[in-house]
């Protein structure tokens, strides 16, 4: 039973993918900001990966210095606006707000953050200008949150910055991956334009760096290189039927959804395989597109899922059904997908094992694999002397984000194996300062 009707128009899209954290109005911002206690050594601030001075920016909103509030936010986090709406605030800043300790609702920090940042984005208020040109050039591979943050920071330090980006839009997964009910494409792009207009870095779109020759050229032309390539496409399951029509990778599915909106035709019965946040987004997305039946199939039990509780609740709220302890064996069908054969699982001594003879089939006409993104191993192996850990993550010095090849710095999903936009923003800024320190010493 579908909770959402199928999309026909852009208006339908807007309704089904209504923003979860809409922009606050003045009255909301006034009341909400007046609740902040201005805690000493505030736990909310400590819980923000970029360490935004939260009590300060909330007080600035309260005293009518909204521009100052935006500055406080951007001083710590170049993705300040995107983070306000898409960060898992309940787990980060808002989860740490002291009000929780007396069961009083925590401050709506994320939305207050957007209130401040959107006001300067909309007015175009110039908060930053490039630092005095120092004659040095830095190349950045990937215009995701990490790459953009690194570019902004480097520009304030006076570097010339060229970003090489495989796709035709900036912000990486912020616009291509994050669920559409968390932020609109327009809002993401408005922040991207706002930053680029002030700081003036160059983004070379449709310019994937894929060969040794390209890398050598970058090495010859730039003083340092930042790797912000994120992760790759959805990993394969190595399972029969994976190539049938109607089998999609979750990341690719969400990207198409974000780019095409109501032009997407969703199937009737969708099964999403996986238990992480991406699986939740894919399942929610399918339901909101109007699929009659969406099943979220996870091989372990509910408690073992990697997804945040609130993401699961969002999916269930959209009409998704959970199917637990079901491990996929094969995808069925001739040309088009017709179903999935599962086997039941059970946890014995903390280990997942299958129950012999418990196979069963779920019919469907679409399968979304949300079983993780592949790593960028092939690309990364082209770089000389670049150490990776056993999970194909780039190894960096955490104080500077410098890699084992001193000319290269890295950040974001490429070093943490897949986290949040806010972590990418932190890494990019840190790496820029690492680059600055390294180039000043050499």
């Amino acid at each position, binding site marked *: 039973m579908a909770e959402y009707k199928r999309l026909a128009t852009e208006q339908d899209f807007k309704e089904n993918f209504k923003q979860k954290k809409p922009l606050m*109005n*003045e*009255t909301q911002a*006034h009341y909400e900001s007046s*609740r902040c206690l*201005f805690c*000493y050594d505030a736990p909310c601030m400590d819980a923000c990966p970029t360490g935004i*001075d939260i*009590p*300060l920016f909330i*007080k*600035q909103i*309260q*005293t*009518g*210095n909204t*521009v*100052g509030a935006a*500055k*406080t936010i951007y001083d710590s986090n170049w993705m300040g606006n995107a983070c306000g709406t898409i960060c898992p605030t309940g787990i980060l800043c808002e989860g740490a707000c002291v009000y929780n300790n007396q069961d009083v609702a925590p401050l709506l920090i994320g939305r207050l953050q957007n209130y401040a940042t959107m006001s300067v984005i909309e007015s175009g208020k110039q908060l930053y*200008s490039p630092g*005095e040109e120092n004659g040095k050039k830095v190349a950045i591979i990937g215009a995701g949150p990490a790459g953009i943050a690194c570019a902004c920071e480097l520009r304030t330090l006076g570097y010339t910055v060229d970003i090489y980006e495989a796709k035709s839009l900036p912000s990486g997964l912020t616009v291509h991956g994050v669920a559409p009910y968390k932020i609109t494409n327009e809002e993401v792009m408005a922040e991207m334009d706002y930053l680029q207009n002030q700081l003036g870095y160059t983004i070379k779109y449709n310019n994937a760096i894929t060969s040794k020759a390209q890398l050598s050229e970058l090495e010859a032309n730039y003083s340092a290189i930042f790797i912000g390539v994120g992760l790759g496409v959805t990993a394969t399951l190595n399972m029969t039927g994976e190539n049938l029509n109607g089998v999609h990778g979750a990341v690719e599915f969400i990207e198409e959804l974000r780019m095409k909106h109501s032009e997407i035709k969703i199937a009737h019965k969708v099964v999403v395989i996986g238990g992480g946040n991406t699986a939740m987004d894919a399942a929610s997305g399918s339901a909101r597109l109007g699929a009659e039946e969406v099943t979220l199939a996870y091989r372990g039990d509910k408690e073992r899922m990697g997804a945040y509780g609130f993401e699961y609740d969002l999916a269930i709220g959209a009409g998704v059904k959970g199917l637990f302890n079901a491990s996929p064996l094969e995808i069925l069908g001739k040309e088009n997908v017709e179903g999935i054969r599962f086997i039941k699982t059970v946890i014995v001594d903390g280990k997942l094992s299958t129950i012999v003879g418990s196979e069963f089939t779920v019919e469907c006409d679409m399968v979304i694999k949300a079983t993780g993104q592949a790593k960028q191993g092939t690309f990364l192996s082209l770089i000389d002397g670049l150490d990776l850990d056993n999970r194909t993550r780039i190894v960096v010095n955490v104080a500077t984000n410098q890699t084992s090849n001193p000319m290269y710095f890295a950040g974001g999903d490429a070093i943490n194996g897949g986290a949040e936009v806010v972590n990418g923003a932190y890494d990019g800024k840190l790496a820029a300062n690492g680059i600055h320190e390294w180039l000043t010493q050499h």
Partner: protein
Amino acid sequence: MNKKDKIDLSVNFVGIKAPNPFWLASAPPTNTGYQIMKAFDAGWGGAVWKTLGMPTINVSSRYGSTNYRDTRMAGFSNIELISDRPLEDNLREMTEVKKHFPDHAVIASLMVDTREEWEDIIKQVEDAGADGIELNFGCPHGMCERGMGSAVGQEPEVLKTIVEWVMEAANIPVITKLSPNISHIIDPGLAAVQGKTDAISLINTVKSIVGIDLDSYAPYPVVDGKGTNGGYCGPAVKPIALHMLKDLMQHPEIKNTPMSGIGGIETWRDVVEFILLGATSVQVCTAVMHYGFGIVRELEAGLINFMEDKGYTTIYDFAGKALPNVTDWKHLNLKSEVKARINKDKCIGCDLCYISCDDGAHQAIALPTDGSRIPTIIEENCVGCNLCSLVCPVEDCITMEKFDDGKEHETWHELTESDRIPDTWNDDRAGGKGHWVPEPIEALKTKRKDKSGWKK
């Protein structure tokens, strides 16, 4: 480059130099060298040391507060005395602070009794390296019972004499701190100026009782079943401080004396307001006692943003800029007319504007008859008093709109001068002769019905 770099917040207050106008008032936050160093490190530009004088004994407890709904310490009260730490310790720490922060302002607040004592303590704080002296004539409890503090602040002649003694003895700038516990602030202000003080600071705390304990029947803070009047400060006293500052700044013989503004300062807006009325440094106590030294971040960022917006580079560019606009009632334009307007799209239907106007003002708001809860202004009756717009909980929902064309100008002063004082009740702003009010009996007809339809 950044515009911020062009802004210079530094001040030279009668020779006392500081990197910015944000100073700590003489109070518990300036009790020790430890606190003052921590404050300077956090960004404060100056500190007036907790008042030094003779040995004292304090009571326990010492503070009370006015909590307004969920706002703690909207007003704050204390019954504390001057420093209870040995003078030698304070002096030693003062020297150490100055060693670490030579460019920050360290001002010694003093309160003693005889001329010899004044001369002696001034010498000691000068030797310790103080940049200036502040005379505490304001403490409204305890010390006045020993003939000091506000006992002096309320006696202009005595105040003047002491200022004269001090001016003769001191080689560093002297600030006289005034008590607000007086009906006419000009009297002690003028006395201080006539005694040749270099500068004035105000206000000290206001005599008060913040509440009564309903079990012990004693005022807060309760000390073993009894209490006493305390000194009130914090956000609640700002209006009193602004008023007194303005009075001094408009007085021909006082206005050239630099003023350090104190009283209820917590945000950058408060700072700007004090500067607009002529203060060229500000002092803060309660806000720091509430939130710690960290609030200076908000003060500084906000002040800079304001200055950037208005194109000022130093605080002297706008100091006193509001003074010409503070005038006597008799000079206000009687022909100016505003009326309330409700933004129906923003209204949330609390009807507080209706009831405040109907019960508390001019019966100029009508309840809707269309089943909604959105009221309307009865323009003929609205006198433009502001009440509804102050009561309305929604930002910019009720605005006061100008109704006159700005061409006419007439003041009470002009009416008096030209012998045209009205002898009938014919105020246009109150609807003229025919100003409509409901008949008294209407009051009994508008009772609300309960759910059963019966009048309560």
